[in-house]
């Protein structure tokens, strides 16, 4: 069997397209190719139009040939002789229809059900998407939920074993643009807003009448940790010595090798802020609220995508509105190479996801594959792999109206989930208590995450499912041709 693979990005321009919708397809394709190679000859093509020539060669040699197009249906090339199967991620409960948006009328492929019918079959990454497609096309439409096979890719990180959940210090050294809340002198006092002065009277003499009162203490939830010993575990990444983080205020610091020390419980989220569904505001505010009096909780945000400076400013604003806070927030802007990404995984106690919807969420899977338990909502694609044994589940509810992500953004056409912020905030606090007070429970979560992820996304199982699905499609095609042939003769 010959399998051609295509996606709109290739290895050489991937760095320029970080955070774009196409760029995750590149990673999905790369991971799938390894699985496909177990049972087929895989050939990546640069343009979909190259497919037909290869298909004809195969045909002549009596070799079966398929094109897997790693792209959403509206970017799938139709009309090829080579049978084409779209492989796509989708995080909404319904499919775009051609007349949903004015700007779509010029390309019939914007009608996803029509594209999928023409292709005759599709592969997607989650059962949530299978449901959306079959709700539209019927339960007999051939579509399979196959996650990206990520398990093996992280075996080297797993070899190191996981750290205890609460560490006195872990030194990391990353080549990145690092923003560190500890250096920013954050304060709510100088916030400039459009809010008017409300005319509250002030009179130093009269105000002397007011009795002094102590500051408010809301930290009852921490009481059970009072008697615990501080953990003294330390680890140095020791890869290369860098410079300490610097403060550049309204600018993002430049790219250099930054060394910094993370201590206590470390939460990590990998996301693209411009992608609204990632809901990074809640990730930040729930963290800042939960740990405003906790110095040894750190949130690391690995940020990608466009408009970096705008998001930097947005983050400064959110952190100022939360300050004073004793916890620490670190933002890493831009690309991290594999080794640095590995350091980040190794330094993380928990992964955090507060998304409104997900087509898969590879970073979450990657961290789970390395035994990092998660805080995440149990909706859309995450239903396929999250379990309470290794995740603090965040409450969410469906049917929050929204626009198509790739449409005109004018009228609600679909929906996503509403995250219960309070539940997220409590999940931070509960996970902190587990990390600080119950290392065996944490270790069990970690082990359970790895066991489940191996079942879910190890390559052998996925290769077998891919093979069965694709062979079944080829049989369907043969049957169809056999059915068409006599008709062709009679006409």
């Amino acid at each position: 069997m010959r399998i051609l693979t295509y996606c709109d990005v290739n290895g050489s321009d991937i760095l320029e397209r970080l955070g774009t919708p196409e760029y995750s397809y590149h990673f999905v394709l790369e991971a799938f190719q390894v699985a496909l190679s177990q049972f087929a000859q895989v050939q990546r093509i640069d343009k979909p139009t190259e497919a037909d020539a290869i298909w004809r060669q195969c045909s002549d040699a009596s070799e079966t040939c398929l094109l897997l197009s790693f792209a959403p249906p509206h970017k799938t090339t139709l009309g090829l002789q080579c049978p084409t199967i779209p492989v796509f991620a989708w995080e909404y409960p319904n499919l775009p229809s051609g007349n949903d948006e004015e700007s779509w009328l010029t390309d019939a492929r914007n009608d996803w059900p029509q594209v999928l019918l023409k292709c005759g079959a599709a592969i997607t990454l989650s059962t949530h998407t299978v449901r959306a497609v079959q709700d539209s096309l019927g339960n007999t439409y051939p579509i399979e939920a196959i996650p990206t096979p990520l398990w093996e890719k992280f075996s080297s990180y797993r070899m190191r074993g996981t750290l205890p959940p609460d560490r006195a210090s872990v030194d990391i050294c990353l080549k990145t643009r690092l923003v560190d809340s500890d250096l920013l002198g954050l304060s709510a006092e100088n916030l400039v807003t459009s809010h008017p002065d409300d005319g509250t009277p002030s009179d130093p003499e009269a105000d002397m009448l007011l009795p002094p009162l102590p500051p408010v203490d809301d930290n009852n939830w921490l009481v059970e940790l009072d008697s615990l010993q501080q953990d003294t575990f330390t680890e140095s990444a020791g890869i290369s010595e860098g410079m300490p983080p610097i403060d550049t205020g309204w600018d993002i610091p430049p790219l250099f090798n930054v060394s910094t020390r993370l201590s206590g419980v470390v939460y990590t989220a990998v996301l693209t802020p411009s992608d609204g569904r990632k809901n990074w505001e809640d990730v930040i505010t729930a963290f800042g609220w939960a740990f405003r009096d906790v110095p040894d909780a750190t949130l690391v945000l690995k940020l990608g995508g466009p408009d970096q400076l705008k998001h930097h400013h947005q983050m400064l604003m959110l952190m100022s509105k939360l300050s004073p806070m004793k916890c620490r927030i670190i933002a890493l802007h831009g690309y991290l190479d594999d080794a640095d990404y590995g350091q980040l995984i190794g330094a993380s106690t928990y992964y955090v996801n507060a998304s409104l919807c997900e087509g898969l969420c590879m970073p979450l899977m990657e961290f789970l594959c390395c035994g990092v338990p998660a805080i995440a909502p149990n909706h859309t694609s995450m239903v396929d792999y999250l379990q309470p044994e290794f995740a603090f589940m965040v409450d969410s509810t469906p049917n929050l109206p929204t626009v198509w992500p790739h449409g005109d953004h004018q009228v609600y056409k679909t929906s996503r989930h509403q995250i219960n912020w309070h539940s997220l905030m409590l999940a931070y606090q509960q996970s902190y208590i587990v990390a600080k007070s119950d290392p065996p429970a944490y270790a069990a979560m970690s082990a359970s995450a790895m066991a489940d992820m191996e079942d879910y996304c190890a390559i052998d199982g996925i290769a077998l499912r891919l093979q069965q699905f694709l062979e079944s499609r080829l049989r369907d095609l043969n049957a169809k041709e056999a059915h068409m042939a006599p008709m062709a003769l009679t006409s």
Partner: protein
Amino acid sequence: MIILVHTAYHEGNVSANLGQPEYSYYFVLREFRPMLEQLGIVIDIHEPVREVDVIYRNCLSHGMPCVFLSFMPPNKAPIGLACPTVPVFAWEYDNLPHEGFGGKPRNDWRRVLKHLGSAITHSSFTVETVKRMVDTTFPIIAAPAPLWDRLAAKKHSVRSPGSNAVRLRVDGIVIDSQFTDLSQYSKAKELACAPAPLPLPAERSEGVSELELDGIIYTAVFNPGDGRKNWVDMISAFCVAFAYNADATLLLKLSHHDISEVVPQMLECMHKGGDFACRIVIVHGYLRQDDYEHMVDATTYTVNTSHGEGQCLPLMEYMSSGKPAISPRHTAMLDYIDDSCAFVVDSFLEPGTWPHDMRQAFRTLREHVQVDSLIRAYRSSYYVAKQEPETYLAMSTAAVVSLQSYCSHAVVRPRLAKFLNAIIAQDPRQAESALPL
């Protein structure tokens, strides 16, 4: 008893200041006044610092009990008076302002309350908040605006919901989604026009007009400038819930002195709702008392989707009049909303800011309705109105009963009288000067 009362606005200037901070204290005092007049002689104070202690000293010399009720938030209550000063205030957040922000110590309400020594608020929720944050024994009661008797005394038509059309006489602006070209209010057009708001629709009616309403009518009365009211969820969930129901109407009665910015935003929200069959009507303007009552009568359900309420006068009015609610059960609504009289909308806590904090720093938590739950509440209530008239009538009766136990004279008056008497009894000057009658 001499009861001195003060608030920021009076009958002469309140309508020009609708929607300003503290405007609603005028309406709260107006509801309290008949009850206060039953308890003692009520004297309106315009300048507390000049007037209150003069009257107080006269009272002392005549052995007359005297108390000053400041219908203002604690940061604006006078703090240097000899007369016992009781702030009567509304509050709806998870904590009290506890920082002297803006360089003003009085913004720390705990200190003001501790100094004044007692307070009146409108809900059990805020009574508990104050006791938690100031002192567990702090003297404070929940006295909601006692409006139940005024409304329940009226004979409200107990008719099947949606049975016949009504006509309301409106003097003001009426904007009806059925006759408005909502495509003029797309996000793209809004952005193109920014920072200026889009103009009000040409299809609006102004001046005196008749508004005909029929079907299942959901009414919300609110100040759209008040961000707590969360009309975005109210409108978008309505469009989703009733996309295919032409006989569902959402009537938004706005109270604000200037609607030129908010109404185009509401229309953009409706445009985003897509092709919905239901109807949304915005009414802004004065309704004569009998027309206001017709509006209440015409209403099937009253709607609230807010982030928090100190008491919520419109919700209390409609429910006292026998209208079941679509409402979350949080803050003040904990005192009178439950499944017997309302379709309860689930909500969760999220970061909030104290409304008068110029920094708008995250210092408190507020509630947010779950949109999915709101959509379900709209649909269930519609079903009940159409298919289960007995259930509807039972909910209507339960609404009246629930509000009776919350804000009727019979409930509030003895509580208030006992509280004011205790405050006067604890004032050492008044205890000394009390003359035997």
